[in-house]
């Protein structure tokens, strides 16, 4: 196992009496794209600032390429940051902004000019060298900030919601472009965002933050398919979260009583911290629920069918969202289907009797229920 590029060792940080980070540990390999994802105030930006050297942790240590940098100021760390508000220097033009770090290092002007031109070409801003910062658009400023951070060839780039100020279309385009640049240069990126879709699109791994701890760390697919808590299941994509009693637990299988009503046999998850007889939360993705408009013949394929009342159908363009009531408790489930269902809905949809088809292996057991 090679020494990771970055290692955080149980970092803690409080502002006043408010704990912001509660023992964050993390490793980033060279060339990796890691996203810190979470709602605002979860500690993701503070983690980035600890890595950049702008906050000193109360406890814990930071290593870059094996060397401890916990007490080093930002200018002694081989990482650069793309700030959320870009922080481009308004009294300098585009080229002077990009060259800022090179000039400080005492690079000769000729060599610096070449590097600046290369960096601006990389972000597709050739010819913008002498523009003032106030004369270029937000999207272009974002690119200048990126070029300025890349030009010094750091081994690790920190990005704090860099696309937050851009409109949706530009944002999507920049996501792909950022990812392409990261691959091309083979740089490690640590990327902070609260946008789960952005995280899923770009990352090699995602660290899901909540209240100063990492709830889950893994590949996008792993996190989406196997969320470990209802927070993660709910924050990444949409999820139906239900209560279920663990009535029986064997080495391979768990028997669940959903909402005190429906019994299901599901494969036992690799990690499970609940015992037989306890109530747990389970998650089911809306796109994993099939809505049938006539009763299907009992199939032998291991599928489960539940009768339900259809409450509402919402047309979303590429998909339709269907709200269902399969339980006596009145708990609503959401299903998403890409199939055209207009015809079967017969205009007035509410109260229609339908059947849900679910695959028990799509049910994910999360944490113990607090209740």
């Amino acid at each position, binding site marked *: 196992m090679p020494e990771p590029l970055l290692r955080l060792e149980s970092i803690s940080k409080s502002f006043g009496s408010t704990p912001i980070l509660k023992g964050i540990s993390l490793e980033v390999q060279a060339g990796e794209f890691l996203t810190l994802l979470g709602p605002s105030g979860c500690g993701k930006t503070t983690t980035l600032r600890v890595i950049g050297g702008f906050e000193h942790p109360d406890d814990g240590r930071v290593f870059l390429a094996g060397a401890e940098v916990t007490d080093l100021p930002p200018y002694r760390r081989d990482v650069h940051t793309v700030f959320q*508000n870009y922080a481009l220097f308004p009294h300098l033009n585009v080229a002077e902004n990009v060259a800022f770090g090179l000039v*400080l290092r005492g690079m000769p002007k000729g060599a610096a000019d070449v590097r600046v031109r290369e960096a601006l070409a990389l972000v597709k801003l050739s010819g913008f060298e002498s523009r003032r910062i106030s004369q270029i658009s937000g999207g272009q400023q974002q690119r200048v900030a990126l070029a300025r951070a890349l030009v010094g060839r750091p081994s690790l780039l920190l990005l704090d919601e860099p696309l937050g100020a851009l409109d949706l279309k530009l944002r999507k385009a920049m996501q792909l472009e950022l990812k392409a640049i990261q691959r091309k240069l083979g740089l490690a990126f640590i990327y902070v965002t609260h946008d789960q879709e952005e995280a899923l699109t770009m990352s090699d791994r995602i660290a899901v933050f909540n209240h100063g701890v990492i709830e889950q760390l893994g590949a996008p697919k792993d996190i989406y398919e196997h969320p470990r808590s209802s927070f993660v299941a709910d924050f990444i994509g949409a999820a139906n979260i239900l209560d279920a009693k663990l009535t029986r637990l064997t080495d391979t299988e768990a028997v669940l009583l959903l909402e005190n009503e429906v019994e299901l046999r599901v494969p036992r998850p690799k990690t499970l911290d609940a015992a037989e007889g306890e109530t747990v939360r389970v998650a089911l993705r809306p796109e994993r629920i099939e809505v049938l408009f006539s009763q299907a013949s009992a199939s032998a394929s291991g599928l489960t069918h539940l009768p339900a009342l259809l409450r509402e159908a919402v047309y979303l363009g590429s998909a339709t969202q269907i709200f269902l009531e399969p339980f006596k408790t009145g708990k609503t489930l959401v299903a998403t289907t890409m199939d055209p269902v207009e015809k079967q809905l017969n205009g007035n949809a509410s109260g229609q009797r339908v059947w849900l088809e679910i695959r028990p292996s799509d049910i994910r057991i999360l944490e113990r229920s607090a209740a």
Partner: protein
Amino acid sequence: MRRAPGWLKAYCGGIYTFLYLPMGVMMAFSFNSAHRNVAWAGFTFRWYVKLFHDAQWAQALGTSLELAVSAAVISAALGLLASYAMARHSDFRGKRAYASLLNVPMMMPEVILGVGLLTFFVRAHLRLSFWTLVVSHVVFCLPYATGTIRARLMSLKQSSFEEAAMDLGATEWQAFKRVTFPLAWPAIFSGAVLAFTVSFEDFVTTFFVAGIGTVTMPIKIYSMMKFGITPEVNALATLLLLLTAAGLLAHYLLAGER
């Protein structure tokens, strides 16, 4: 758009008349060729010419300018240091007391400030001189300079310019020199101009702590008035007024930039 009722216009008109008419009359009479401020006897620049040929007036003007420039430069320099400390460190022990105590001289009645300073200088066996006057002016100019500079540094901090510079390899001093100072310069200059204006027109504190022989413009005007309000006083006051107004205008133009 709603039109203001007549009574409101009349009321506002009355207020502004009361505020500015005396100054207008004074300026007008500085061009009056008669010796008394009673009747208009024709237009003249005579009083201004006379003023500029009077060595005493020129000396008072020189002293005032020298004093105001010194007080402004020192206040801006100290204000920059104080503001930098407050903007740089989000929290330190006694930060609020530090910030409030800086502003106290601005709110303190000047008579008390004057008496206090005079007592201090006498007790400390410091001879009253031009430099005791400069120190005294810095005391009440400092809050004006600091206020302007601090606001700018705070807004610069919001934009993380200094952090960006340090991220790119600048030490704290390099970040200050290459980024913070150039960006804060308009505010530093405008803070100094405000301090200049405040110092230039000060009478009360100066009256207490000016040593014998140090005569500033306001002091000179006051002593002249013992012999009645002559057209020369009008001319001098007009110059003082214009200079002060120019300073304030410069301050607001610079502070409003960006």
